[in-house]
């Protein structure tokens, strides 16, 4: 369905290599691809239109840097403009000089407000604050209970009152915060449609009652074209101070981030990246830009890798790659390292150029376990020099690992292919990974 933008642009620009400046016709062709990429990523139609026009203006006549191909140059400009549009890294909450600081979460149904109330409370608590959560979702069945259970989990008190209007509860919550000495008040509100007059009025009432420092719109990262309508209306009615983008641990490209930012001008202050309470991160516009463009989140990948990999080992590994001494033993070790990094599929997707190959590839963690078992059943000699493994050894290994001779054979063959690929990889840029022959997969044994 979707090819990485850089790859598409590469194709568009095949004929244009070596030109000094980007001319209008080149840029127009490139912008068609950019437009498609952004639309596929769910950036709003109109936002795309304006963005593309603006970028085009900047790109026409731009010098092509010597180190870049024209395609790379265009991607660079697009990427920079996207980052600029999404604003600097911003995860600060305005803390009121006169406590309590009041934070109000608003948004559509199912966006993740309640969960994020708890995540925020937990984060602030870790920073030495004393939060109190207020349950103002008086409509959804068991919403109050949900907040109470979460409060118990993170040891943050929850203020709730039955049978009263949301604005009254919010106000009573604020008073209670003063009495308890809580310095942050987090108000969870019911999910509502932006076109529901009555319920939008309720939010305005809550705002009038407690004058929050921060009104944050909680937006599902998977939202499509409608994100602009939602953000625009909430902003017009309430005057938003920021956005929390949720469910970014999915595989959505997340164009809603751009749409919302474009229509409200509000910074995205946090990103929700999982169901666990700790899964709340600062928002990084540069990573989001790469993700929207389908270019692979290089920075995140590098960071994750750094966390998981023992640096010295990584250097050793590189050395081996270069000398082409990479053995099954090393491969096993790398698999262990990879496992520490998280689900394989999500990591592979972050590698530029590999996204395309992964299009309909599934990484089977069960296969991975088989591979591991097979290698573990080999002797050190066999691991270092797989070429000595003939039929009788294969039989023994298959038996030892509870697999079949065919499976052992397949692994050996794939490993051989992989070694070949590694040679290319070690020789060139990381882009080398994506350069494999068309139709031929990189051949990792657990990828098919």
């Amino acid at each position, binding site marked *: *369905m979707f090819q990485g933008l850089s790859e598409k642009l590469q194709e568009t620009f095949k004929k244009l290599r070596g030109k000094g400046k980007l001319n209008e016709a080149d840029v127009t062709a490139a912008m068609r691809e950019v437009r*498609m990429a952004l*639309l*596929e*990523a*769910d950036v*709003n*139609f*109109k*936002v795309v*239109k*304006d963005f593309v026009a*603006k970028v085009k203006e900047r790109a026409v006549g731009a010098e092509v840097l010597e180190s870049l191909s024209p395609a790379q140059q265009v991607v660079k400009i697009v990427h920079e403009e996207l980052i*600029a*549009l999404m*604003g600097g890294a911003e995860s600060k909450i305005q803390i009121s000089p006169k406590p309590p600081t009041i934070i109000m979460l608003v948004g*559509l*149904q*199912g966006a*993740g407000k309640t969960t994020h109330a708890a995540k925020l409370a937990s984060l602030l608590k870790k920073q030495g604050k004393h939060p109190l959560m207020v349950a103002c979702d008086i*409509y*959804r*069945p*068991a*919403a109050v*209970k*949900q907040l*109470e*259970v*979460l409060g118990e989990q993170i040891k943050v008190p929850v203020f709730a009152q039955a049978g009263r209007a949301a604005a009254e509860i919010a106000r009573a919550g604020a008073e209670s915060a003063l009495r308890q000495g809580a310095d942050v008040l987090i108000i969870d509100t019911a999910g509502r*449609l*932006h*076109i529901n007059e009555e319920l939008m009025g309720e939010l305005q009432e809550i705002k009038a009652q407690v004058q929050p420092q921060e009104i944050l719109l909680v937006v*599902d990262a*998977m*939202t*499509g*074209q*409608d*994100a*602009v*309508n*939602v953000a*625009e209306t909430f902003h017009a009615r309430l005057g938003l101070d920021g956005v929390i983008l949720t*469910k970014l*641990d*999915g*595989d*959505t*490209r997340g*164009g*809603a981030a751009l749409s919302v930012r*474009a*229509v409200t*001008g509000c910074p995205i202050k946090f990103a929700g990246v999982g*169901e666990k309470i700790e899964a709340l991160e600062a928002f990084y516009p540069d990573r989001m830009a790469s993700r929207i463009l389908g270019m692979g989140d290089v920075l995140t990948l590098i960071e994750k890798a750094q966390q998981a990999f023992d640096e010295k080992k990584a250097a050793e590994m590189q050395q081996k790659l270069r000398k082409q001494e990479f053995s099954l033993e090393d491969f096993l070790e790398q698999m262990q390292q990879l496992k520490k990094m998280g*689900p394989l*599929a*999500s990591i592979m997707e972050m590698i530029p150029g590999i996204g395309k190959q992964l299009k309909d590839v599934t990484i089977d*963690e069960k296969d991975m376990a088989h591979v591991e078992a097979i290698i573990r059943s080999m002797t050190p000699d066999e691991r270092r020099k797989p070429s000595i493994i003939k039929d009788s050894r294969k039989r023994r290994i298959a038996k030892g690992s509870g697999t079949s001779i065919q499976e052992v054979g397949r692994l050996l063959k794939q490993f051989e292919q992989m070694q070949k690929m590694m040679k290319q990889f070690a020789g060139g840029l990381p882009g080398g990974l994506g350069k494999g022959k068309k139709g031929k997969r990189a051949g990792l044994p657990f990828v098919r």
Partner: protein
Amino acid sequence: MAGFFSQLKQGLVKTRQNFVDKVGELLTGRRKIDEELYEALEEALIRSDAGVNTAMELVEKLRREVKNRKLTEAQELREVLQELVADLLGAGKPLNLAEPGPTVILVVGVNGVGKTTTIGKLANYFRREGKRVILAAGDTFRAAAIDQLEIWGERSGAEVVKQKEGADPAAVAFDAIQAAKSRQADVVLMDTAGRLHNKVNLMEELRKVKRVITREIPAAPHEVLLVLDATTGQNAIQQAKLFRETAGVTGIVLTKLDGTAKGGVVLGIQGEVRIPVKWIGIGEGMDDLRPFVPQDFAAALFSGLDEAEG
């Protein structure tokens, strides 16, 4: 920066007005079919979340139809386009019900799309038909998810089979089916925790739930319903693909169509994996569930455009 934002924003307001005038005027007014019209229709489809490729393909088909049928008036286009959309979606399909019961319906989807609410609505629907309904509290993960389902049980008059929070959902499925057999229930509606389709372990868990159901009743689950939020963009296609692979989805419930989102992504889904849409959700109440009618959906896809929309 502020300048750029306000510029964008003004632009948005302006286009909205333009657009409303345009599509309405283009499709209803007495004028000839031209390029501008095709473009406006393609735009309308993209803005409904149909996806760029699907939008282009549909407009391409439209051009061919216009040629074949020798149409010249813009007015005639709307109908043809609606036909094409309805064709793509296929006929609305009723639920596959087991005779004799129990019919087991497994409800799956990502977080917050409306699974539990849809179960409440379906329970109400079956209760009205005089059926005996059991709800299985298979979301043992999210805080207070079980309480939420119990409230729906009370509202609709369905029994709830549950275990403790944190219990194995497959065990809840097992209990629910045993209960259904011994109490001669007609329908079991199985709730599940929301999960993102790219989480391998959570999808495996779902596979296990399904396996347990099939072990107890070979023909079950009789339906596996994927709940999709109409506000979702292109990611819904991934959701459909992966949930179908893991859970063998047999139908889609498209929720939150009471908002301004059009849910056009179900068109994109049909291009990739054929899964019929069976129900739509149009609110948070017990009665806000309707059978899916492709023709109506197609009409709404374009008619709504006469109203304000970004």
